[in-house]
């Protein structure tokens, strides 16, 4: 369905070139869900923007392709996937225009991207509002964003993402702004809708718990590169990359002793040579600073970008 192949993204800054993404390869199968996890600055948002075709001006893409339904949507703007990729933004409070009714702003997008008349669009939107379980779906069309609660606004945005019959939905931390009880309902709704409509889902998050609840597969990003990828259960139960292991070891549900990871994520303008994680890695070897580790396949599509994945971590950093 969607396959990102060797994607690199650079942005020129006053302090030199920022290497935001470096040879990122991942794919979302038809009807599948892929979670992308990583800490701030790892390139999650840039990846989303590249897929949505909204990279900021001045961005260079020196290598790579994004194949969507068989066509490279990076190279060929005419093959643009507009309408076929739905987007669910992070903040339901900031993503709706307060001076237009919910119906008006979603119908506007449908006018550009969906076939049919306005009457068809309205009927379809009311149907979608029912599918996302908004109370009183017909009346909701004529309500303003402030008349909805946070959870309802996120439902509204999910309906908007589905309005033009997308094949793929891209979600950017859609529940970070919500309370846990609301989050749970929204995640259940997303699961149910993607399954019922056979949608593919690319889900960006930094929360491993949310990841476990929604995604079959996961790609862990560190400093613009994929560190580890595989089935969510496999990665969470048996993380292999030292970064994934240490990061999961920071999770309050799992941590033996809260330690954190020494050092900080490198700035995009000053990425270390070789393995990006080597300055912070307890398993570091001399070769790590020289060579970029290739993705090593393990079982069942589980792959890890670390040749020392089988070594145990030293005691205090144990996951």
């Amino acid at each position, binding site marked *: 369905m969607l396959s990102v192949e060797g994607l690199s993204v650079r942005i020129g800054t006053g302090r030199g070139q920022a290497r935001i993404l470096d040879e990122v390869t991942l794919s979302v199968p038809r009807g599948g869900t892929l979670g992308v996890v990583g800490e701030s600055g790892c390139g999650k948002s840039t990846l989303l923007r590249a897929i949505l075709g909204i990279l900021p001006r001045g961005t260079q893409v020196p290598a790579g392709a994004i194949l969507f339904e068989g066509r490279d949507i990076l190279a060929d703007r005419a093959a643009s996937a507009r309408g076929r990729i739905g987007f669910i933004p992070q903040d339901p409070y900031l993503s709706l225009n307060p001076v237009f009714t919910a119906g008006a702003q979603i119908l506007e997008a449908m006018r550009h991207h969906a076939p049919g008349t306005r009457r068809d669009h309205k009927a379809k939107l009311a149907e979608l509002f029912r599918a996302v379980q908004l109370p009183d779906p017909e009346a909701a069309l004529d309500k303003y964003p402030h008349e909805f609660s946070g959870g309802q606004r996120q439902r509204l945005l999910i309906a908007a993402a589905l309005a033009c019959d997308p094949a793929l939905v891209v979600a950017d931390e859609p529940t970070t702004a919500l309370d846990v*009880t*609301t989050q*749970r309902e929204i995640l259940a709704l997303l699961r149910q809708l993607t399954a019922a409509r056979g949608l593919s889902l690319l889900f960006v998050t930094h929360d491993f718990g949310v990841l476990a*609840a929604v995604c079959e597969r996961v790609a862990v990003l560190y400093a613009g590169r994929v560190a580890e990828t595989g089935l969510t259960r496999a990665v*969470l139960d048996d993380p292999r990359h030292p970064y994934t292991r240490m990061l999961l070891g920071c*999770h*309050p549900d799992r941590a033996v002793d*809260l330690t954190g990871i020494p050092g900080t994520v490198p700035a995009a303008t000053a990425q270390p040579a070789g393995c990006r994680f080597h300055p912070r890695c307890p398993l570091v070897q001399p070769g790590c600073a020289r060579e970029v580790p290739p993705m090593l396949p393990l079982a069942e599509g589980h792959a890890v970008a670390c040749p020392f994945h089988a070594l145990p971590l030293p005691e205090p950093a144990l996951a």
Partner: protein
Amino acid sequence: MPEILGAAGLTVELGARRRLFGTRPGVRAVDGVDLSVAAGETFGIVGESGCGKTTLARTLLGLQREASGEIRLGGLVVSGQDSATARRQRAAVQYVHQDPGAALDPWWQVGAALAEGLAIHGVTDRAEQRIRIAEMLVAVGLDPALANRYPHELSGGQQRRIGLARILLLRPKVVILDEPTAGLDLSVQAAVLRLLRELRDRFGLTYLFISHDLSVVRRVCDRVAVMYLGRVVEQGRAETLFAAPQHPYTRALLAAAPRLDGAAAGPSLPGDPPSLRAIPAGCRFHPRCAQADAGCARLEPALVETSPGHLTACHHARRAA
């Protein structure tokens, strides 16, 4: 351990306006809260947005005036004053902001922001200020040279540490931490939590830990109070409360928290919390509660001891066996 900070029947009204004719009633953001925080413990307050966590914190601090009830600090009753007096009297209680980046003046170097607090509290000698600031920056795990940086040059984790350093300079006894880990990455969060524990032991602090992240609260808090619509619905030792929650709301809240093993526990909680302007009669949780019966809609349950050291406000509290 003796109590250091306590409240009895604390009620706070927000937004009441006096009009030309009569008054417009406010909302009760905090409605009859009893609390007792022992010296040296980490006391967690959890609940969803709008449940009154932050209002409670502001009132304990003295920034918000209580409508009724009593606040005790170190054994003395400190409530009933206007907010300026209240704040002065409660200098031993300090507050760390939810968003430390927003709490720092972007035009001021970090050192100047730290010195201002000291100056207000009577340390005016520049050399003395510099020494204390450098010491404190080291204590929170930062390079003293950071005093010459501006807030935007700091990472989120560094800003949290500055926020901590700023109030620890004032030598508080009780520190109110409002969502101390919101918006932090997992690895930074772990480091901040560890630092909090070290600082508590080193400076003999008591924490009031406000958070909606249940995993974190379970990890760091000794005791926990769960709030719903301005009331405490359950309170007890963290391990008992998380292992065997007795109030249906606590159970729903715990079940909703995403878990690493991906298991979903129990039914989800329907609907949003009602508005503070339309608090349901009887038990305020009854419209969303699966166990509610006719009695729940009539009679508001009191917070009573359901097992030793564990308080629950529910007619159908699931008592520990």
